[in-house]
């Protein structure tokens, strides 16, 4: 392998891992508060389509990304209204959100399939991006990738050092105890779900505005689900989410690597890799029951009714 190939593989790995990182960070915060939202895929798709339409009509990428975030948040509030407001089963409600979001995004976006736009361009930071191998990976990316670094640092800091992070964790570990000492359980959960929705929307926007600047039905291709597995893989720790996201990014670009090296492998078998890797990783992490229990938020997915 020559050095150019390695540099480019690292670059593509971070670029491909970025949408996964963003969704997974959002879901991490959501799950830490005890809420399991399986609707990531639906929120991502809505973010992708709404962001795309706004950018196409206004010509502004910033407005597009903002719309993507808003779309994800609105979707997440539909989930919250039913799963939190009405105490419905979180698994089923999340599934409903994914089915609904997939349908709605395909419906809204039907007229926009295949329309090209100018996507977000990378910005190479002078000097730093010249560093061999890691320069291009870390310092020649687009703005959303840089933003994802910041978001990672924020979430990491939030849970390690902030009082609010502690409240979120308390609410996820034992909402009854948190409620008893006067913490606003439901408000915290609504906010955590909204944050998760905004992040999923942003990740969706990244797909349609930067990663492959166009809209296609179902373009998130299971990334929302992979992100859910990533959170399990990361045993609910931000520093492992970023590691996992890039590992999955690498698994997703194996076909490019294989092409680059001239191996004739079936594209369909290579396209399977990220999903197969997800199963493998889940099996490896979950089989250590004691360890995975230690980090799982105790109240994850269970409804909480203050007087129930």
């Amino acid at each position, binding site marked *: 392998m020559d050095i150019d190939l390695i540099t480019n593989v690292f670059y593509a790995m971070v670029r491909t891992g970025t949408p996964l990182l963003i969704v997974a960070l959002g879901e991490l915060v959501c799950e830490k508060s005890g809420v399991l939202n399986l609707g990531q895929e639906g929120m991502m798709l809505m973010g992708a389509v709404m962001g795309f339409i706004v950018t196409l009509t206004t010509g502004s990428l910033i407005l597009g990304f903002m719309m993507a975030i808003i779309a994800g948040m609105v979707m997440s509030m539909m989930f919250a209204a039913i799963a939190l407001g009405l105490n419905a089963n979180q*698994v089923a409600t999340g599934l409903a959100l994914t089915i*609904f979001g997939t*349908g709605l995004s*395909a419906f809204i976006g039907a007229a926009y399939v295949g329309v090209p736009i100018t996507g977000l361009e990378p910005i190479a930071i002078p000097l730093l991006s010249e560093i061999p191998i890691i320069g291009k990976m870390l310092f020649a990316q687009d703005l959303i990738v840089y933003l994802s670094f910041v978001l990672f640092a924020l979430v990491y800091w939030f849970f390690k050092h902030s009082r609010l992070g502690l409240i979120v964790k308390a609410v996820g570990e034992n909402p009854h105890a948190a409620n008893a000492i006067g913490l606003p359980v439901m408000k915290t959960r609504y906010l955590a779900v909204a944050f998760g929705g905004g992040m999923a929307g942003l990740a969706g926007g990244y797909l349609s505005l930067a990663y492959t600047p166009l809209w296609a039905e179902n373009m998130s291709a299971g990334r929302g689900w992979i992100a859910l597995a990533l959170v399990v893989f990361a045993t609910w720790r931000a520093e492992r989410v970023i590691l996992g996201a890039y590992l999955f990014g690498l698994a997703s670009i194996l076909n490019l690597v294989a092409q680059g090296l001239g191996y004739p492998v079936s594209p369909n078998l290579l396209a399977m890799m990220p999903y197969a890797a997800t*199963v493998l990783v*889940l099996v490896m992490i979950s*089989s250590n*029951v004691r360890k995975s229990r230690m980090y799982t938020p105790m109240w994850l997915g269970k409804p909480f009714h203050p007087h129930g």
Partner: protein
Amino acid sequence: MFLKLQPRGEASLAMSYFSPLLAGILTLLTGGVFFASLGHNPIDALAIFLIAPVSDLYGFAELCVKAAPIMLCAIGLSLTFRAQVWNIGAEGQLLMGGLTASAVALQLINVEAFWVMPVVLISGMIGGALWGLLAAWLRNSFNANEILTTIMFNYIALYILLYFVHGSLKDPEGYGFPESALFGDSALLPILLEDTRLHIGILLAMFAVVAAWVFLSRSFLGFQIKVLGLDSNAAKLSGFKHKRLVLLVMLISGALAGLAGAGEVTGPIGQLIPSISPGYGYAAIIVAFLGRLHPIGIFFASLLMALIYMGGELAQIELKLPLAVTSLFQGMLLFYLLACDVFINFKVKLKNTKPDFKTEHA
């Protein structure tokens, strides 16, 4: 919020039957508003969506053709959901069933014998069952979350199918199209009604409905599954073998979804093509909930879901709407159902405006 939820203490049975009905009505109303906002007359549009598709015998036959695979998948899913196993993988199990059935049907393409069709269907069931058992084994032995593994297996199954339909199962005389050769006549499901596509799949599905009903209400294993769903601690204390039940429900569910896939390739399609299911496996999840996990309920919910599929196709032609209107209605229906289900366990009351220490957290 001016409303608050008050627990009923005991689940309301009446509400659990009323809730799907209410959800259906709310979906209709929202659908009407939705069509009106797109500039269509809501009544006419809903008629095109829900009545026109079944206004003749051919439409009714198509309804059964579409309901059969949904019904088979949903019956299987209802067993897993009852046992608290979140099998989201009916779609993948259906695809694997279709793939293995196709592989066998292509091997027997020139054989003319009565046993060809049953052999093809059974291989489809085996393919689906093995795919389901894989997830069950990973859950039992490695504690791997079945929601995520079955979803991943859906994607993996699709790529395996694509690999074969672009590869060794491709028709060598098919001018390079990713399609298999047409199956031999003895592998195809017999047609029930002339000049329609109605095949015996609907009978197989109805048989599964009856069998599931008997299984749940008359057998000890069915009883164990019910108890497991109602109270997993009680099931553990009674010494039910939990892992064995997980394997069993995933085996049945996978086999039924596999049969649905086999029925698609040997029924309306007649060969292996890249897309053999328009998301029947996902629609079956909604059907299982809508039918209250009960075989009879699932029977009717499957017909409704099939109608939504047909309505979406007709709306595409008549109203020039994107086909995605189908999944839009499906998602809406499930949302409303989950929202209405709140009445099963809670009474909704107007909130007391006077300061009351009980309401401060609601």
